[in-house]
């Protein structure tokens, strides 16, 4: 695959190295001349000192034939513009943007960016895993974010306590497939009864997570953390 990485900060630099090691064709675009010189001493001629937001610069770097454009500069707005120009101006089939403000994630996807990566959101998820939660925990996204692997912690107050997991009237877009009980991962069987302290792991469409939360956790004052 021909992959164009824009932004040679730490993320862009290590990403490029890994992609090269996996045998991909990569170009790394960096607008700061000093930084470009620094990384090209290590990575060689695949580093191009241009502005990835400029139409002409993207073109001369080969955007027309890129399979993927990854925008990982430190500015959300630049990453949005890079991805939108790549998609709409150069017909790049897949675009990936880094976002620092997690609230931009959903907007960027609506605006046509194929995938959004957010270190802020990942850190948030990592913190959530250590804290008793009254909300659903978002573990991973599938299908560009339409489906998520989620975790719900069952408490004394939750309406699902004492119920047979398989008999809960869950929405169609949700499947419970495992639970963590006392640090042991168990498959949910036809007779598994939910107990306080259980962590239920499920696959769920994002649009039915409100129902899932109500059934497993109950009505809570907090809201699920938004992407």
């Amino acid at each position, binding site marked *: 695959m021909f992959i164009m990485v824009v932004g040679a900060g730490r993320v862009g630099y290590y990403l490029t190295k890994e992609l090269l090691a996996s045998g991909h064709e990569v170009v790394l675009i960096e607008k700061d001349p000093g930084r470009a010189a620094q990384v090209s001493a290590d990575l060689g001629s695949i580093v191009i000192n241009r502005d990835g937001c400029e139409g002409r610069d993207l073109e001369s770097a080969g955007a027309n034939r890129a399979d993927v454009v990854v925008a990982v500069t430190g500015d959300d707005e630049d990453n949005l513009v890079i991805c939108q120009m790549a998609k*709409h101006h150069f017909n790049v089939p897949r675009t990936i943007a880094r976002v620092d403000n997690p609230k931009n994630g959903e907007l960027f996807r609506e605006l046509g960016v194929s995938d959004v990566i957010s270190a802020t959101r990942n850190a948030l998820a990592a913190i959530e895993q250590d804290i008793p939660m009254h909300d659903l925990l978002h573990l991973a996204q599938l299908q560009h974010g339409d489906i998520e692997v989620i975790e719900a912690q069952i408490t004394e107050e939750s309406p699902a306590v004492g119920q047979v997991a398989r008999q809960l009237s869950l929405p169609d877009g949700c499947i419970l497939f495992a639970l963590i009980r006392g640090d042991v991962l168990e498959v949910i069987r036809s007779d598994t009864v939910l107990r306080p302290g259980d962590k239920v792991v499920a696959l769920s469409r994002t649009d039915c997570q409100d129902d899932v939360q109500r059934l497993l956790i109950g009505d809570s004052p907090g809201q699920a953390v938004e992407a």
Partner: protein
Amino acid sequence: MRAIIVGCGRTGAGIAEALVGSGHEVTIIDVSSTAFRRLRPDFAGSAIRGDGTDGDVLRRAGTQGADLFFALTEGDNRNVLAAQLARDVFAVKRVVAKINDPVRAEAYTSLGLNCICRTAMMVDALKRFLGMEGDPHAQRVWETIGERDKAKVTEAS
């Protein structure tokens, strides 16, 4: 009319005062409070310090349901983001983004964003000053057909 302006540079301050002078309700946003010195001391609109590319800041400024939104910071990409937030998240009908790079301005016009391009304006003005033929398009806001569907059409073709 209720207008939200992001970026209190000379252009932002100028249009804010013109709108206030015509009796409109204006809120102007800038990351730096010193930028508000460009406004007259008796400016009758509101001035809010904050990042106009942040959805929370725009919400607090009352962007939802505003009639007009002008993104006029010095950064083309910040204007692109702010304008798309205004249009798609806050449903503002009349949105204009200042985009000084003509290639990007052209691209975003075809993506359904109204753009104003200072570079194109000045090149055109200088050409006219030299007696060369001007471009009637350059001195105006580049208006779209008002729908985002044009982008989808381009994509499909």
